[in-house]
Each structure stands twice: as C-alpha cells, then as structure tokens.
C-alpha cells in the first residue's frame, strides 16, 4: 500500500491492526504522496494506492494501458478539513466567501481587522496565509471546496510540506490561518466554524457534521484507495477488513470520519 501522506498514519495503523489479527499477512506501507502512490500502482509496484484526491483522467487511462484493467476506486472514510487559527485569535467562525477572499487570486481580505478582529490581540494585522505545497491533494481539495475549480490560489502563502506542519506553524504564529485535517488539532490552535455565506450559521468540524447531507460541514473529502481491477486474494481480504467494523474503528481513532453505516 503506497501513496497519500495524509493517509500514511491511517495506512500504518491498519497494517498494524490487521497484522495483529492476521499474522500471516504482511503489509508494506509507504508514503510519498498521492501522486507517487498512483504512479506506483500504474507501474505495478504496489497493490493498493492510497489517495486524498481523485485520480486524474490521464492516470486512469494509464492504469488501464499498463495493467490491462480498469482502476477501481474505494471510499474508505472521510476527512474534514478544519480551518485553524492561533488560540489567542478571538474569531469564532468564517464563511466560505471570506476564505476565498483570503486565499484566492486577487483576494480582498488581507488584514484581520477586515474580519472584525482587533489586531492588538494578535500583535499584527497581516493575515499570514498558511497553505500546502503544489501537488498536494489537500491543497487541491481545499481550493475546489472554497474557491471553485476556476479560481487559483494567490501566490505568496506559506506552503507547508505536511498536514502536521500547517497546524504547528499556526500554533507558533498568532496572526496565521491555515487548513488541515481535523485530526491534526493540537495545543495552541483552535478550529473555526464554517458557514456557506457571510452571516449564515457556522458549522463546526465534527464527525456528525461531516456526514450530514444537508447543512453539514462544507469542507469534507473522501479518503480513497485504488486498485487495478477487482482486488483479489490478500489485497481483497484486506480491503474487506478495512471497510468492516475493525478497519473503520481505526479510521475514527485517528481523527478521520468513518463511513456512515458504522457510525
């Protein structure tokens, strides 16, 4: 199993738990990123690719060309992307439109005072945008959910290289804002409620809200596994286990949202 850095903890925990109950099974887990995992699946170097973004059409095509089988996509859980700010920041909720104006090209919100926050409490009025590196599945998903497919990020954000790093930097920087999986919350930060429109009801990133179809948490993405063709033998058994109660318990344990049937 190879791929997404977002899912590496999850994959490792699965491998460990699965090995405990099925000692004969040996699962090798490696990260490197969604793109790496998918490339590896295409070349036949791994059986399962984990990805925090959907496969691109070109990649699907290549799986078929090289492996002779259609790629199969399996949703194994959900990840709610929380918007983090420093614990001293009095802000409580923010709308998607405001987030788009903070992160998007030509965005008009660059100062905390524009959001009604007293800059004296942060020591600085400039909003420090913390984002992820190019090619990150999290970066792509946040853009799509907040700004839509056509608007890109304004350059000049602080692009961190991992989910933990985003939250750690926000914890050390009073005037920062950043996004990362809700499982990465740590001391020194707090998460914002998100509303669809300014003045609308803010929704907190929780397990329940992430799964609601109506009025749920708006920045929730599926966690995916890909195989080439119908998974067989050992890989198939593992996938079955992941979708079943024990595998889903691991999902919840690590701060991700398990599939609805097991709630």
């Amino acid at each position, binding site marked *: 199993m190879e791929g997404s850095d977002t899912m590496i903890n999850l994959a490792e925990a699965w491998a460990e738990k699965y090995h405990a109950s099925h000692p004969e099974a040996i699962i090798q887990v490696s990260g490197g*990123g969604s793109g*790496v995992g998918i490339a590896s699946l295409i070349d036949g170097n791994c059986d399962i690719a984990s990805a925090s973004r959907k496969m691109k059409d*070109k990649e699907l095509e290549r799986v078929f060309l090289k492996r002779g089988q259609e790629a199969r996509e399996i949703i194994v859980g959900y990840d709610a992307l929380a918007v983090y700010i420093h614990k001293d920041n009095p802000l409580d909720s923010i709308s998607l439109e405001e987030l788009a104006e903070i992160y998007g090209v030509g965005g008009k919100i660059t100062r905390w005072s524009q959001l009604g926050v007293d800059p004296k409490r942060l020591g600085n009025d400039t909003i420090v945008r913390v984002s992820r590196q190019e090619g990150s599945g999290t970066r*792509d998903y946040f853009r799509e959910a907040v700004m839509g497919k056509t608007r890109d990020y304004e350059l*000049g954000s*602080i692009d961190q290289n991992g989910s933990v790093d985003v939250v750690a930097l926000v914890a050390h920087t009073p005037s920062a804002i950043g996004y990362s999986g809700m499982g990465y919350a740590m001391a020194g930060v707090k998460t914002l409620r998100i509303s669809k429109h300014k003045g609308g009801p803010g929704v907190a990133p929780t397990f329940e809200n992430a799964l609601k179809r109506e009025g749920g948490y708006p920045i929730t993405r599926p966690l995916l596994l890909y195989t080439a063709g119908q998974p067989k033998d050992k890989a198939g058994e593992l996938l079955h286990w992941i979708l079943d109660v024990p595998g889903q318990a691991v999902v919840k344990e690590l701060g991700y949202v398990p599939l609805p049937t097991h709630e």
Partner: protein
Amino acid sequence: MSDQTTTTGRAVRRGSGRVYAALQVVLDRTEPAVEWLIRLCGWSAILFVFGIFFFVFREALPMLSGKLNLTEFFTSDQWRPTAEPQPHYGILVQLLGTLAVTGLSMLIAVPLGLGAAVYISEFSGGRVRETLKILIELLAAIPSVVWGFIGYMVLGPIIIRCTGAPVGVNLLNGSIILALMSVPIIVSVGEDALKAVPDSFREAALSLGASRWEIVYRVLFPAAKNGLLAAVLLGVGRAIGETMAVLMATGHSLKMPHSLLDPIRTLTATIAAELGEAVQGEAHYRVLFVIGLVLFVVTFIVNLTADLVVKGIRNERA
C-alpha cells in the same frame, strides 16, 4: 601511514622479525587486489557523478527540447505548475530567494567563520584549540532537518517577539540557520589555509615590530587569501545546496523578497516539496528536473571556482 611504519619498525627491533616477515608475505600477495579495490572506489565517484547528471538530464530533456519557454522560466514570477489548462513555470522568485538567502547567510557566516578560523589558528592554544575544533566538528555533524526544526520551533517565535514580524519563518530565519550550517566548513578550511602559512612569515613580521592584529591583517590574510576564498566558496556551495533546513526555516512562500522579514522560497525547497506529489513523466515532474539542472550548473560553477582557487594555492606554494 607513518604511525604504522613506526610501530612495525619497533616490532622488528623488539625481535619479532618472523611474524613481521610472514605478515609482509601476506601483504605482498593481497596488495594487487587491494589496489584494485581502491582504484574501483576512486572510479565509482566519477561514475556516480556522471550517472546522476545523466539521470537528471534525461528526465529534464523532453521539456528542454522546445516545450519549456525558457524566457518565461527565468523571468516570470508565476509558478503555477498544476494550473489548468495553462500551467506556468516561472522560477524568478525561487532564483532570487536562493540568491537572497545564500547571500545573506554568507554575510553572517563569512566574518563569523573566518574570525573563528583566525582565533583557532593564531590566538588559541592547547586545550582551548582542541575543544573548539571538536565543538565545530560537532556543529558540522548536526543533521539539516534538526537545523530546520530549530529554525521553525525556536528561532521563529523569537523573531516574531523581537521584530513584530507577522511570521517567524522567513528570509532572516533561513539565513541565520544556513549561516550556522556553513560556519563549520568555513572554519575548518580557513584554519587549514592559515596554518599553511609558514611560521617564518609570522616571525619576520614580529621582528619588524608588528602587532598580532597587524600580522593577521597584513601578513596572514594576503598570504592565505586563496585558501580563505576557497573556504568561503565551499560555504556558498553548502548554502545553495541546502534543502531541508531552508524548506522549514524560510517559510517556503512564493513571494519576491522585499525585506528581511519576508518569507521566501528557494529552488532546492521547491524540488523537495513538490517532487513527491508530481505525476511521474508529466510536465511538472520534468520541470522540477530542469530546476535540478539549474542547481547542478550553479553548484558546479561554485565548486569548480573553489577547486581552481585551491589549485592556485598549491601552485603558488610549489
């Protein structure tokens, strides 16, 4: 080598000549094999360098043959490698970021490193000198990711508190970290260069009534200038090529550096951050290799200059 001959020499004198003779036979027999082994080690270095260059070049080639707009590549500040439908590959910001952080770190590291070299070589003695040398070697052994961590967790918050900057990972932070990382190499090469100046120079200067400072400034620096320059250039090479620490300490932000407190991004960090997520064989992936080539050329020039300068010293001495 000299240690070995003296101990074996002593052994012979003590009368264990037979053992020595037997050892000599074994050594004689194995010598050709050992010689070959060593030769292989030497050649492998060349093989690796060319192998790496070949690999990087091969991956970059499809972009270089016309697909990449080189004018945009070097002059545009728009780095949007995954944008649809039209990606932009401009490395101007990263290029300037690399230059800014390297230049600034050298402004800190060169006086610090050369000063330390002068102190160790000329002003300290005995225990102090040995302790300092060990400590500086220790400094060189700290892994870059630890340096990055120090920049991120320790230096960052200090910079925010002292300067009121909005964010602590920035040009200043990266430069300080890089400076500390290049100081050891500048000190050790610089000290060697100062030590290579014959004592007769110092004695002559002393006899003319020069003060210690005058000896350093008027005699040692001119005499050791090539070695000192080589020390600085090796420090520059270290700073340009450093990846992990700058990725963590500079903020990794695509912004033209305007002030010391701006977060910046370097070429190396761009490769490190994005190669893992780039789709193999596609344009973004290949452009990262083109950046690798740019870095390869830059470090090659710096190292070659350092090498030629060092060779200059040897020739001068001969």
